[in-house]
Structure formats: C-alpha cells, structure tokens
C-alpha cells in the first residue's frame, strides 16, 4: 500500500477501550518493547495508541536461566521468566521517561498470589501517565500448587475482582490460550469486573536439541509467539467477541496491516503488536499508516466501523 500521499484525507483512528481513549488502535505488547526507551532511536512512540510495558512484579525478579529464546518455524519460543526490576524501580525510573514522551502507558502486572496483584494495583493507582492495567494471569498461583491463574475460571474471577477493588483504572486481563474453553475464562473475567480483555498470550511449547538430547530452553517450556499462532489467536478472539460484551485488544503474530485488520474484523477494538517489533522496530508505525490507507481506499470514516465486520451471525 502507498504511504505518504499528498494531503491524504483524514481518517478517524481513535478507539475507546473501557474508559481508555486511545488515539489509534495500535498497542505495543508487553515484553516486546521494554520500557520504550530501548527503541527510542528508531520510533517516536508518542504516535502509537498505547505501550504495554514489561510485566512488573512487586519485587525484582532475575528471570530464567538461558537459553531463553529459540526460533521455530514462523515463530519463536521464549522463557524469559518475568525478569523485571520490580514495581518501585518501574515507577521511579521508567514511568517518568514515558510520561515525558506523552505515550499512553498500560502497566502489565504479575504476581504469585491474589494479594500481590492487588498490592501492585494499589501502588499504580496513584500514578499519572498510566491509563490502564493489564493483568498477566499466566503466572503460577503459589497458594494453589502452582496452577496458572489464567487456566482456572474461579481464580481468574478472584484476581480480577481483587484488582478492581484497588483501582479505578481500567483492568484488562491478558488471557492465556492454554485452556480448553477460552469463552469460559473470558466470562469469568467479565464477571470479576474486567473492563476489557487482552488476547492472546503465548502458546506453551518446547523445542529439543537432538545433539545434546535435551530441551533447548533452560526452562524446558516456553511461550510460542509470531505468525505461527495467528490462526489460533483469531479463532479465540472470534469466539470471545460473540459471547462476551467487552472490548478486546487482539493480537498474536501480527506482522502487517492485513493481519491487524483480520483481528479487527473478528472483533478486536485494538490490536497488539508483539514479536514483530523484534524484527522491525518501526512496524507499529508502518501498520498504523497502512491501516489509514486501507480506510481511505475503502472510503471508510472510522476504523471502528470494521470491528467485528467478519463475525457471522
């Protein structure tokens, strides 16, 4: 698609997700864009809808032993292990930088217990610059024998409900695809008071080194991302859009504006760009411009007209 045409017709890219008003539907996914600073030489993030920062826990975490990543066909596995400096360092050292840039920040939080999620949420509540909280519920619940929060509807309900009790910010659980019925989980999040849903997180997988006869990743299992997971992600967004009345931030393997449109047409109000950032640091800007081009080409006034356009009755 042609970019940078002379005096292009204005198109309305603004979207609303719960109480969040974003200038456009492009969201940089957690864990793929650090705290924004890492990419400052390549892209002006103030033009992007929102940045979801690296998953943050109450205390600092050092992460998993290497190897932490491995490439697989049309994708990659990662097992970073939530390495992050802890919520205090994020608020004191990284948030001021992002505030200066004028980008809408969505905090991504993770914990080992419901209480930890609630505690981080209450610390974030008092901060300007943060427009929403994304809940990483693909974490083991230490009080429930390490079962992931995101795989049990009751635990999803509890963690969303607890965080809602601590904050007036929109709360957006990021759903794990590693479940039998994604709709059941989405409904539990809705019942807990979620303002929107983010989906999908990575698909659990692994790779084997046949010379060493060992799993490649230090953590054995890792999360699959990239174009390989797009069909699964689209299917899940479609299913949830039909059954749950919450705005959806959709993503999984988006590499270009066509992929982004597919997610919007199955019901995503906004799209998250993840792994593609590693390949092309300006990809979010390019996708945004190409989406505008699509709207002009099809004489559409607003990106919102396309949300759910491909969903069948």
């Amino acid at each position: 698609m042609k970019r940078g045409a002379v005096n292009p017709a204005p198109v309305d890219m603004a979207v609303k997700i719960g109480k969040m008003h974003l200038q456009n539907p492009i969201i940089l996914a957690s864990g793929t864009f650090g705290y924004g600073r890492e990419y400052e030489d390549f892209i002006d993030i103030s033009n992007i809808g929102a940045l979801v920062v690296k998953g943050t826990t109450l205390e600092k975490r050092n992460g998993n032993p290497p190897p932490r990543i491995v490439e697989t066909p049309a994708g990659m596995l990662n097992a970073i292990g939530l390495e992050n400096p802890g919520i205090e360092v994020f608020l004191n050292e990284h948030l001021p930088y992002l505030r200066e840039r004028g980008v809408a920040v969505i905090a991504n939080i993770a914990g080992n217990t419901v209480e930890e999620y609630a505690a981080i949420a209450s610390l974030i509540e008092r901060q300007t610059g943060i427009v929403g909280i994304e809940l990483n519920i693909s974490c083991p619940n230490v009080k429930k024998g390490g079962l992931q929060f995101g795989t049990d509807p009751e635990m999803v309900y509890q963690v969303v409900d607890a965080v809602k009790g601590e904050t007036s910010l929109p709360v957006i659980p990021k759903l794990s695809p590693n479940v039998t019925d994604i709709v059941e989980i989405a409904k539990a999040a809705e019942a807990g008071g979620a303002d929107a849903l983010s989906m999908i997180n990575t698909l659990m997988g692994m790779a084997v080194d046949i010379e060493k006869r060992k799993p490649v990743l230090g953590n054995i299992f890792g999360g699959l991302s990239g174009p390989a997971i797009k069909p699964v992600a689209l299917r899940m967004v479609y299913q949830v859009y039909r059954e749950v009345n919450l705005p959806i931030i959709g993503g999984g393997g988006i590499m270009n504006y066509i992929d982004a449109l597919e997610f919007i047409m199955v019901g995503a109000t906004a799209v998250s760009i993840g792994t593609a950032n590693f390949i092309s640091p300006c990809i979010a800007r390019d996708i945004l411009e190409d989406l505008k081009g699509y709207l002009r080409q099809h004489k559409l006034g607003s990106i919102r007209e396309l949300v759910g356009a491909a969903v069948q009755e």
Partner: protein
Amino acid sequence: MPFLENGLVVGHTRVSEDIYELEFITPRIASECHPGQFVHIRPSLSSYHPLLRRPLSLYDVDKRLGSITVLYKVVGKGTHLLTRVRTKDYVDVMGPLGRGFTLPGTHKNVLLVGGGVGIAPLVYLARVLREEKCKVQVLHGTENQKQMVAFDKLRQIGVEFMPATADGSAGFKGLVTDLLYKKIDPAEIDFIYACGPEPMMELVAAFADQHGIPGEVSLEEHMACGVGACLGCARKLKAEDEEYVKVCKDGPVFSMDKVKLYKKINGR
C-alpha cells in the same frame, strides 16, 4: 546512535567453502560504527522462517564510502537464506548495536587472537588500532589454509600476522592457543582482544590473567531484538552472579576479568 537502513549490496563473495563476505552501503550506520559492535540483518524480507534478524560483527567499515562488510559462516537456515542475496539487492540492516571494544590508546602493543570466523570483529578493530598507531599482532586459528580468509585484509591493514591451522596447511600446526602460549612474549603486550569459540577465549583470558595483561572478549548468544528489550540473550558473567547481563546491550564485548568463560563449547 543506531539506525534502520536499507543497504545496497555491492559485494557478496564466497571466500571459503561455507564462509561468505557481504558488503553493503549504509552510510548512516557506517558513520556511527565502532569496532566490536554488530549489525542486525534480516536474512530475507519475505520469509517468516526464520523470523528473526541475525547479529553479525563488523568485519570492516569504510566510513568514506559508507560501506560495511560482514563475514559469516553458513550454520543454519538464516545464514543459508542470506547466501542468496545478490549484488544490487537491498538488505534490511539495523545498527550499529551493542557495546564495542575499548581502545587502549595510541602507540600500544596489541595482540588479537581469533578463532574461525571469530576473526571478523578483530579485523575492523585492527584497522582502527593501526589508525591509532598501535603495533598490532594477529593470531588466527582455523582448521585449514582455505579458512584463513582474513589474510588479505589484514596484510593491507598492516599487522604482523601469525596463522595456526589444525592440519598444518598454513603457519603453525595446532591450536591458536598453543601458538599463543609458545610464541608470544607477554612482556611485549599491552592489551589482548579475543573472539572465537569460548574454550579458545578461555585459554586466551587465562594467558592474559597469568601475565597481568588487560583484555576483552566478544561473546555470542542467540538474540531476538538486539536492543535490550526482549531480555532473550541473557547470560551470567560469573556463576555466582544473581543477575543476568544482556549480551546485545551490555556486550557483546566484555572485559576478560569480568566474565567466566566456558571451557567447553556451549558450556551449559
């Protein structure tokens, strides 16, 4: 600062059985290059397999022409795809990235030890060291004479070159580290740089430590983003460390005395 630039390929040569030299024009990136840094290259613009960029050391840089040359060995799908790039094609290049070598100052006696294609970053380093009026000795170890691919460039740069081959087809017969321990007088060396397999660098670092010579090594790790965002290329510098450094951002160059190198290939 780093840039994203489309580089016009002006040269792509198979210099040995599975070793290639690729030269492209990226004036903005070239103007910022420092020895030891790397460029992150997409092996193919259209393929999703492999998906990620490939980090390649700066083998040579011509700031006047705005060109960068990388040296790579075909080891997997990504480098195999890269071999298909032709002159007049464009390659998608990100860089320069990472923390490069520390220069020791002018008129120093410097020793560079390279193993295999690990010679690559040492060649551009040798060029800059010569500009700094340093006396540069280069030891390069390979399997055989055919793999001694940097010889012409190093001769043109003006270094004292000592090859070591496993089969004895060029120079010293044996390991480059044996050559180092047998032939190099540590009293004449102010600074050592090494790049190659870790067991080789481990022996070079031991030599440096034994004689109190400061030095640096360049490490390798699988990377995704190359800018410190994905936290994929994590490594503990010493076994007892709690925190991981990121090879892409904190390195790839590290001081020899700060890192515990592996004695075995992929020593984990």
